């Protein structure tokens, strides 16, 4: 449990550093890949809702610190996202091979809408058309491209989900 937690923290830390220093500078057809969100999806699907929420909170806090953004802004969105994906992973998506792709596609859209709403509430000038029309579709596609390699890497580091191991034991 503790080793898993340390591994998850390390994965999130590396993802934040890569996201802020490298990935966020890549802009293709108006969209930018979100490595951190894809990593969070992988952790949440593999470890469930509580881990997802905690990883989302930590990831958001680190991202806001590294990019000098308002503290708590990204944490709020990623906590909810991590929890929701974790619940999906524990229930409906548990044996589905398409769960990572579906989760990444849906959460990218919901995250963009949530972030837009939060920025509007906080009074930031944001171009909603660019966020929801210009950048969203390329962003979803780029995140989908990242999904399989990132999911495979995170699963290799964290191991298979606990419930999958239990099922193997029961069947065996």
């Amino acid at each position, binding site marked *: 449990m503790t080793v898993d937690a340390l591994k998850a923290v390390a994965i999130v*830390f590396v993802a*934040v*550093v*890569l996201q*802020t*220093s*490298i990935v*966020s*500078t890549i*802009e293709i057809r*108006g969209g*930018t890949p*979100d490595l951190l969100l894809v990593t969070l999806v992988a952790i949440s699907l593999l470890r469930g*809702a*509580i881990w997802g*929420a*905690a990883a*989302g*909170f930590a990831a*958001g*806090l*680190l991202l*806001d*610190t*590294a*990019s*000098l*953004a*308002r*503290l*708590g*802004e990204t*944490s*709020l969105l990623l*906590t*909810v996202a991590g*929890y929701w994906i974790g619940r999906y992973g524990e229930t409906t998506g548990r044996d589905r091979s398409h769960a990572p792709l579906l989760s990444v596609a849906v959460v990218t859209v919901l995250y*963009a809408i949530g*972030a*837009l709403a939060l*920025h509007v509430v*906080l009074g*930031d*000038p*944001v*171009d909603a058309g*660019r*966020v929801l029309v*210009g*950048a969203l579709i390329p*962003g979803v596609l780029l995140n989908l491209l990242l999904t399989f390699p990132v999911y495979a890497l995170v699963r290799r580091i964290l191991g298979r989900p606990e419930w999958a191991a239990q099922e193997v034991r029961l069947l065996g």
Partner: protein
Amino acid sequence: MVVGVLALLSLALLSVYFRESDNGPLHGAQDAGATVMRPFQVGAERVARPFRDLYGWFDGLVGAKEENERLRAELARANQQAIENQNAAQENRDLREALDYQDLPGLKDYRPVNTRVVAQQSPQFSKQIVIAAGSNAGIKKHAPVLSAGALVGEVTKVTADTALVTLLTDESSAVTAYSIRTGALGIVESGEGGSLALDNVPKEKDVTRGDLVATAGSGVERLPSLFPRGIPIGTVTSASQTDTEPFKQIQIVSMVDLSNLDVVTVLVR
């Protein structure tokens, strides 16, 4: 239960951070955290740089021949212009000396701090970058930031070893600027699709394609300008007007690629 607590904690953080001053405890904690993360970000950026340069090299090959011809023509024009400028500059110096002319603070009154870009915020919501120098290097809030001699933005947050720079293409950015050829005054703001626009230029003013736009500065004592006069911003790519709009519609293109900044210069006094 856990998610509720974490969400409430995030909201509390956001609320306190939003209300407190730049010297508040959360800003201090962020300052310390950013300092810890900076070496990792610099390291990652250095590792990625050769790959990014390689991509840029291949990307530059597309249309390189046409660009070469265009640049040769531009160079010929620039050489001609440089000779004229040298004469004008000498004449200007002589006249200033003769008249004992008192000017606004200029570029010569600032000290450059050259630094590296280490992080970038999500470009969908803000056009902001984090640079690897802060108050320890003398950087202050609202300092102008340049790249390749052209204005790219303004420092909007400073920690001990890092600073946040809001780029000209950010929705919240606005800089008073003028056309060097005619002196027509306006405000450079973000335009459609991450471009730049020179707004608030009256229709009777003369601004045309190819005009160079630079910071206007201000001599008003109560509202001193953040930037010295004469920092180049970009070139006018189109200028039009309609009967219904009170101002011209002017698009400008920055002299540098604002989406791919590597090294920047902060001007400090």
